């Protein structure tokens, strides 16, 4: 490749990746600030507002993204990649900025959660259209034999977007008092987005259309109806199904397990709430370069088996890895310094009632500390009964020593390493599966169904499996028997394991390792 072409490719990569990274940033700050957003817009004691809150999380993240893929994918195949992903960029930036401007529930009542829900839906639509456009645009500039390497830069953007969102939130928090952040400071990360979008818009504005699409357009070979050609014709639709079941659904569960379920597991199951951010950020930083490495490698040794082996290792290793994470920090494996155990019982006011609060702190010989706060809701001086049981909330937190923290970081790094192995070559694989005239539409839908629905629902389904196993064990213990499910905290992993295993078999048997656009 000559120097001029290489330098213009870097400009293409820069313009596409920065914009896509910002879109992921916009999408993630809503999730990262979900707790504070709930208090401002979705008061939990109001059932309708709580319902809207759940809708904002589920609908935007999972259901709307495929619709965005269809809408903008069609547009991209009709009028071009460049203009379409300019629109998605502006839509995302505008919606994010506006979320930061919406007055709170206390000021404008139900209009507040309704506006936030609508803006969140627009975010989901924009994200659904962005990724396919950026990946296609870059791949069509790169040319065959190098698509894996060049598109892998786009693949880093989701992880970097998450990372940047955490950094901006932490910087904003550290620049003001806790009260100021909770009052108005949480809006700053949303406002920052408009500056980033403006810069990205100016860069993208001067880019030219992708050469491959420009050629198709000049020859008058663009699709008249991309939706019909993508999903209405068996010849193409069977490849859409193959992309979804033979790769993207497996990639989606590997991605969400490594980056999100791991985070939730560390915080909620292991109790390392204070160390979670640090562990995740180090693991993400260590693993991110491997996106580019595996993208590059896929150009040399092929994409199919690289991605499938990543999925297979994930399927086989998830249970031992999560068991090792849990056992590393479990207090059952530590020696308690009983002389340092403290139990404090007190009564605290909670709105119009009183709660009994029992705080237990323990220290261990390896330097770890453990704290449990048990809150028993009271009614007329006795425990309040809800669903036939006393209403008790228990929050357990723990701080482990450096050696344990690094061991957990390493185990999370291993999971994100698998993410890079599977996700790094994904864009190139999808681009090569479909012809240029319907590429944007055809690759966007399976990508967003695989990630948004199979991946995005992972936390909810995995949690539901763990809760079900816990209930079975509770019932068995109540009946005087042994627990029926061993290691119930690992039950949630069956979801990514089963989906990943099915995906591996389909991918191994049906996907052609030499696959390029099937009818070019």
């Amino acid at each position: 490749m000559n120097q001029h072409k290489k330098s213009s490719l870097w400009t293409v990569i820069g313009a596409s990746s920065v914009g896509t990274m910002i879109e992921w940033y916009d999408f993630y700050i809503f999730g990262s600030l979900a707790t504070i957003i709930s208090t401002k817009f979705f008061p939990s004691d109001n059932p309708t507002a709580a319902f809207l809150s759940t809708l904002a999380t589920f609908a935007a993240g999972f259901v709307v993204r495929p619709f965005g893929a269809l809408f903008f994918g069609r547009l991209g195949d009709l009028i071009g990649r460049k203009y379409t992903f300019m629109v998605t960029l502006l839509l995302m930036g505008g919606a994010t900025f506006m979320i930061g401007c919406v007055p709170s529930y206390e000021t404008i009542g139900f209009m507040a959660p309704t506006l936030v829900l609508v803006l969140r839906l627009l975010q989901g639509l924009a994200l659904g259209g962005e990724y396919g456009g950026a990946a296609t645009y870059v791949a069509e500039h790169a040319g065959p034999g190098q698509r894996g390497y060049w598109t892998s830069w786009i693949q880093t953007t989701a992880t970097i977007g998450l990372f940047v969102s955490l950094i901006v939130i932490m910087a904003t928090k550290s620049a003001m008092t806790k009260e100021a952040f909770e009052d108005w400071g949480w809006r700053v990360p949303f406002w920052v987005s408009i500056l980033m979008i403006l810069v990205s818009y100016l860069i993208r504005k001067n880019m030219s259309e992708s050469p491959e699409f420009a050629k198709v357009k000049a020859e008058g070979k663009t699709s008249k109806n991309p939706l019909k050609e993508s999903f209405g014709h068996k010849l193409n639709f069977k490849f859409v199904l193959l992309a979804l079941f033979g790769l993207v659904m497996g990639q989606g569960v590997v991605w969400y397990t490594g980056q999100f379920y791991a985070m939730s597991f560390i915080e909620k199951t292991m109790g390392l709430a204070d160390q979670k951010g640090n562990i995740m950020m180090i693991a993400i930083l260590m693993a991110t370069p491997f996106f580019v490495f595996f993208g590059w490698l896929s150009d040399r040794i092929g994409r199919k088996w690289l991605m499938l082996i990543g999925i297979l290792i994930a399927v086989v290793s998830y249970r031992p890895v999560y068991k090792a994470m849990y056992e590393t920090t479990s207090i059952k494996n530590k020696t308690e310094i009983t002389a340092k155990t403290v139990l404090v019982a007190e009564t605290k006011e909670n709105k119009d009632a009183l709660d009994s609060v029992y705080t237990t702190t323990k220290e261990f010989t390896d330097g770890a500390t453990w704290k449990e706060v048990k809150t028993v809701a009271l009614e007329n001086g006795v425990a309040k009964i809800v669903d036939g049981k006393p209403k008790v909330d228990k929050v357990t937190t723990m701080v482990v020593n450096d050696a344990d923290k690094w061991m957990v970081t390493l185990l999370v790094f291993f999971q994100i390493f698998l993410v890079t192995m599977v996700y790094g070559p994904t864009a190139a694989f999808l681009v090569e599966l479909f012809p240029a005239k319907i590429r944007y539409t055809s690759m966007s839908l399976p990508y967003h169904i695989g990630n948004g629905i199979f991946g995005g629902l992972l936390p909810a389904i995995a949690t539901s499996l763990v809760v079900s196993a816990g209930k079975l064990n509770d019932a068995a213990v109540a009946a005087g028997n042994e627990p029926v499910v061993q290691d119930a905290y690992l039950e949630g992993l069956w979801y990514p394991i089963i989906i990943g295993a099915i995906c591996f078999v389909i991918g191994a048997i049906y996907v052609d390792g030499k696959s390029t656009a099937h009818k070019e």
Partner: protein
Amino acid sequence: MNALKRVLGVVWIAIGIAAAYFLLIDQAIPKFETGKQEDLIPAIIYTFVLAPIIVGGLGIFGYYSLTGEYSDK
């Protein structure tokens, strides 16, 4: 390999049907019946989003597989 692809078509259809049972009978209906706010959204998602994609998608994939659409020519 073509014969294996065809035979597996039946397996994908069967998995689709099993997924329908799990998602609708085992998960969604009990959640609809509780009447609790927090159960309603997962029940709707299982019924109207996840089930159609898995059952319909795997069903069609299995059918295509069974009829030789994925066979090497």
